């Protein structure tokens, strides 16, 4: 036990006029209920409208998007992106089976390696856990198949998200994480959940907006309509 813990808690209880050992615990009740608060109307949409809003909001914050129907055409969408920005055809992909199994070399002549992000990686391709239409936000959940460093070290960040995984609001994503944890018998939260809304930016020098501060300078989102197998 650290020093000061008891003193701090005592002072708080004294300030609140309460004694230790009170059997009711409204805090525990609230956590167990984890009720949703107000969800903006903007986020409550049909599946098609959700995807349209997601694209609109993501592009508002300087992300680019492409929408494809089949998952196995992800490499050609990535190849288009590399060509458009005159980038070498070398990418680091997240070590997820879905991505590894794609025809990178055969179809699009892209050299891929997989693993965590390294300083030398120029372009990464990662798979999102979800998207949130409300603000055009990607949700990345860390795991051995989804290393966090891939989202921050490269200058160009390409993220694949399945249309079916685009939710209206953040709250839906928490429900999905809870459901996944209940099924697998694990904790709700992986080590890192990263909400990403556009490419990195700063306005710290004379309030001038510049993209590409410490994280990626460009964020490209590939939306795949095909539902997961």
């Amino acid at each position, binding site marked *: 036990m*650290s*020093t*000061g813990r008891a*003193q*701090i*808690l005592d002072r*708080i*209880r*004294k*300030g609140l*006029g309460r004694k230790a050992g009170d059997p009711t*615990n*409204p*805090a*525990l009740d*609230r*956590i167990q209920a*984890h*009720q*949703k*608060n*107000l969800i*903006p109307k903007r986020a409550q949409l049909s599946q098609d409208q959700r995807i349209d809003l997601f694209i609109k909001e993501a592009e508002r*914050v300087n992300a680019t998007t492409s929408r494809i129907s089949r998952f196995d055409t992800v490499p050609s969408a990535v190849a288009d992106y590399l060509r458009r920005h005159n980038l070498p055809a070398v990418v680091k992909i997240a070590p997820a089976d879905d991505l590894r199994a794609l025809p990178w070399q055969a179809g699009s002549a892209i050299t891929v390696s997989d*693993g*965590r992000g390294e300083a030398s990686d120029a372009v990464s391709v990662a798979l999102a856990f979800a998207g949130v239409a409300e*603000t055009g*936000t990607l949700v990345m959940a*860390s*795991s*051995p198949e989804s290393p966090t*460093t891939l989202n921050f*070290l490269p200058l160009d960040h390409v993220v694949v998200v399945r249309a079916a995984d685009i939710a209206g609001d*953040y*709250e839906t994503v*928490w429900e999905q994480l809870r459901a996944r944890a209940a099924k697998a018998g694990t*904790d709700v939260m*992986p*080590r*890192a959940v*990263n*909400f*990403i*809304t556009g*490419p*990195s*930016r*700063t*306005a*710290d*020098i*004379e*309030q*001038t907006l*510049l993209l*590409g*501060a*410490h*994280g*990626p300078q460009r964020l490209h989102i590939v939306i795949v309509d095909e539902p997961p197998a």
Partner: protein
Amino acid sequence: MHPTSPHFKENARAALADKPLQAALAKLAVGFPQRRLEAASRLPEFEALRDQARDIKTHVLENLDRYLEIYESKVKESGGHVHWAETAEDARAKILEICRKAGARTVTKSKSMIGEEIAINDYLENNGIEPVETDLGEYIIQLRREPPSHIIAPAIHLSLDQVADTFLEKHADLDRNRELHEPRALLEEARAKLRGKFLGADVGLTGANMLIAETGSNVLVTNEGNADLTYGLPRVHIVIASLEKIVPTLEDASTILRVLARSATGQEMSVYTTFCTGPKRPSDLDGPEEYHVVLLDNGRSRMIGSEFHEMLRCIRCGACLNHCPIYKSVGGHAYGWVYSGPMGAVLIPNLIGMDEAAHLPNASTLCGKCESVCPMRIPLPTMLRRWRQRQYSARQTGTFARTALRLWAGLAKRPKLYRLVMGLGVAALGQLGGKGRFKSLPLAGGWTGVRDLAAPTGDTFLAQYHKGPRGDQSGDLMRKGFRS
């Protein structure tokens, strides 16, 4: 840092004469409020969300002991450690101990107001560990050895030329004749310099925008991505947070996120919102091996149940700074310590004591703009008044002000006498001033020293109000009464 708050008046005078600062503040005064307004108007539920955000923190503070206990147990469950720190000194010592144990030589740091509050950088440096600020603005002011002048835009007081000069001086290994006239060039240089620091750091020190009791997570909100490279690359992640940062659930955090960025920068959402929970899992390819949270009290538990209790709802968005006529005139450094603006004027006396911070609650026109934009609806003007009342009761208010206040109070409690004296005063000043302005007046040097005082024309407001009927003419009366 040693507070210069006792010298607020001198600081303010210097700030008003500082041309680059005034140019920066003029830009801030337009940009931030405008963008906040646009973001708020894009979200019809914004006001209702502010109510809910306020209610969440009100509930948390009423149960803070319980939430802290739950939060602590959740952090432990996820494999992390919680260290309680009553004072800044306790927090510094704990952080140093963790760094030493990790054999740390370099600590990267993402912007943290608590880090500023406990002056962790100086402490680490004095103990042979190099702290590196990674937020661009914080990096710049660290090079210049200055405190931040704004919660979310710490280098807002500097011009591009000042930053360029700092880089030329401090990045002495680079070509002296390089071009640094564009913001982009400065950013590229800082990005390259800091990349090496990110990759080489042994410990990453971050703050926390929120701590979630349900999951034991800390929330980090940035636009640059520096926090994510700070916790994501080194072997050890230390979170330093004050204890009122707790929110109950992921849903509650989401509600507060909906008002945070909109109030702060006018963004719908900041670029990176990160939820860290414990150290890396056994099969993860990256992430820190150790996860520590240092929970700082530093006077906050004493605010619980006090007349400044509600200040603990603050989420450090900076909206009250951006809308404050005083902040927009003198900037953050004049306040003389880590925090500034209306939230600083309420919080600083709580943290460093009224003796040091006596001027701050008086550095306000009580116009109420801060409360009207605060996402947590903190009654800042009311609390500024409470400090003034305390000063008056403790006889910290000067003799002149006390006498004037007593005279005023005596008059204000006797309406008939008040009207008579005001009527005479207005008539006398009107006679003396004609229809013009006073360049100086006895006892009013504080005003007339820097601007003219308009001479009153016509009767007092009440006299005019009683004279004319309501309706169309009232507009005319107003114009007549307040013509300057």
